[in-house]
Each structure stands twice: as structure tokens, then as C-alpha cells.
């Protein structure tokens, strides 16, 4: 039987926190052990080597003439292998940033994280990658916004060479210059 109208009775049994704590609802908990070892791949493998050497590497496609980072083995626009490695500078421009006061599991942070998309010098326009801005004195939104702006120039702050392992964290953060 067809029932007209968008005003149906909608079904669902919402549970509140108190219901879960009461012990009256059957709950089953499971913690899977999800561990991974991801192969870096040809391109990121070399990128990580570069980081260990204190360099930021990019790649270039001769057909579309883009220089991009993070590096990739093939150009996704031209669908052909990338043609050359490029050593980029370790300075760049802030494309965008945020000031984050919560962790992924919603714990409150006293000292915020300042993630940013940074356009590294030597790459094509609007090519950026994710990292953190650090070395800031302020902790408040107002204070940080005085030091960090879209368009601000930044420079990588590297771990000491002996401590680098070939990881994105070989760059501790980028600092406004």
C-alpha cells in the first residue's frame, strides 16, 4: 500500500551515555590488532632518502611541465612516468594553515598544533604539502595569527643530521622567517 506524504514515522532507538554505563545493554568490545608495514614505493623511498640527507626532493614531468612534491613515480595528469628528480629549496610560502586545539581522539591541547600546506620554492604554483609550523611563542589564536599568515615565508627546521632516519619528521617543523 502506497502511503503518501513525507511525514512518515521514523524509526530508531537512540542510546544515551547513561544507557551504556548502566550495564543493561549488551555490548561487545573488540580491539583488532591492525599493524602494517607499508612499502614506501620507488618515489617516496627516494624522497625519504632525500630527507635523511637534509634535502626536499620533487619530480618533474616534461610534458605538462609541472614540478611537484611529494614525489610520485608517474604524472597523474599525463599518465606517463615522471622524467626527472629535482632538488627543491627548503623554504616556502604558507598556502593555508590552521590552529588546532584537539587531538584526533578529542583530547584538548594546551599548546596547539599549527598544520599548514606549504608551497615549497621550486615547485609549480599551487603545489603544496602538509607539514607543521613550529617555533612559535604564542598559544592563542590571536597570538598565533600575528606570526602565521597565508603568504608568510617559512623555512624548514631540520633535525640534526645524526638523528635523521629518512622520515617526514626529519623536518621538525617550518618556522616563519
Amino acid at each position, binding site marked *: 500500500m502506497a502511503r503518501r506524504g513525507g511525514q512518515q514515522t521514523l524509526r530508531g532507538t537512540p542510546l544515551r551515555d547513561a544507557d551504556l554505563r548502566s550495564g543493561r545493554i549488551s555490548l561487545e568490545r573488540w580491539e583488532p590488532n*591492525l599493524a602494517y608495514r607499508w612499502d614506501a614505493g620507488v618515489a617516496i623511498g627516494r624522497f625519504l632518502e632525500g630527507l635523511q640527507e637534509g634535502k626536499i626532493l620533487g619530480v618533474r614531468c616534461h610534458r605538462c611541465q609541472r614540478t611537484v612534491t611529494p614525489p610520485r613515480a608517474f604524472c597523474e595528469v599525463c599518465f606517463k612516468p615522471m*622524467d626527472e628528480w629535482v632538488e627543491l629549496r627548503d623554504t616556502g610560502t604558507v598556502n593555508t594553515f590552521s590552529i588546532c586545539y584537539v587531538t584526533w581522539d578529542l583530547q584538548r591541547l594546551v599548546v596547539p598544533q599549527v598544520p599548514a600546506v606549504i608551497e615549497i620554492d621550486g615547485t609549480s604554483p599551487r603545489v603544496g604539502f602538509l607539514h607543521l609550523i613550529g617555533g612559535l611563542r604564542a598559544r592563542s589564536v590571536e597570538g598565533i595569527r600575528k606570526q602565521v599568515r597565508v603568504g608568510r615565508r617559512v623555512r624548514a627546521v631540520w633535525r640534526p643530521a645524526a638523528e635523521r632516519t629518512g622520515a617526514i619528521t626529519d623536518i621538525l617543523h617550518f618556522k616563519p622567517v
Partner: protein
Amino acid sequence: MGLREKITDTRRLRAWSGTIPVAFQYTAGVAGERFFSTLRARGRFAVTRCPECGTTYLPPRLYCRQDFTDLSDRWDEVAPRGTVHSFTVVHRDLAGQPLSSPRLIGFVQIDGTDGGLLVPLGMKPSAVRIGQEVQAVLRPARTRRGTIEDILHFR
């Protein structure tokens, strides 16, 4: 040149290790909740039955998979008894390590229903037969928590 190069020095092969740090807390659902509360309170199996096709669901479902009838008001109860439909003997754990003693697991078709349960079997592996009549051994009523572990085993 470029990325057509081959890597011949295996020390250059890199991998990144990490985890996915997730846990789950499952509700039993509307039908499941009634199944577990019936098991806990009375030591019996709650089932639902479709008035159109007569299928008796165990574990109980809120709907008939065939006729899509709403079974919210179609409950019944059966005794926790049935026959062994199939079984296996497990010798290793999830990591592939030998168990201290082998575990006998069976699929028991429950009498009066069209379904069954995957359960531990409480006899020696050499004594189990397909078609064997078995019944549930439950935890004492006061220690039941309303989960599948309220069933210790069938024998």
C-alpha cells in the same frame, strides 16, 4: 632517467611501519538485545517467526529476509537444544601458534528453528557425530552477563 630507474641496492628499500589504533564497541541491535536478555533471564532462546513464509529466525531478526515483513511483534522462545550440523577441531590460534589443547567448535542447528549457532562443543573430539543431539550448558543464572559467552558449550 627519472623514475624508470631500477633499485639494485636492497638497503635502499624502505618501508614505513604503523598501526590503525581502532577498537569497536558493538550493540546487539533491537532483536539481538532481546535474544541476550532472554538468554540471561530465562536461559532460553528468543526467536522471531515470519507469518508469511513461516521461517523461524535464530539468531532472531527484526525482519524477514524474504518477505521483508516486520517481525517486531513476532517473538517466540525455544529451548536451547539442537543437533550438530557440522564441527571442526582447532589446533592453532590466530597467530598460528599451537593451542595448549585443541578446541572443538560446532555449528548446532537449534530445534524448532531454521537457524543455529556457532558454539564450543563440550565433548571429546572423538565422541562428536554429525546429527548428534546436544543441549546448551549455560553459566549459572546469577553470573550471566547477556552475551554469547553465557553459553559455556553444547553437549
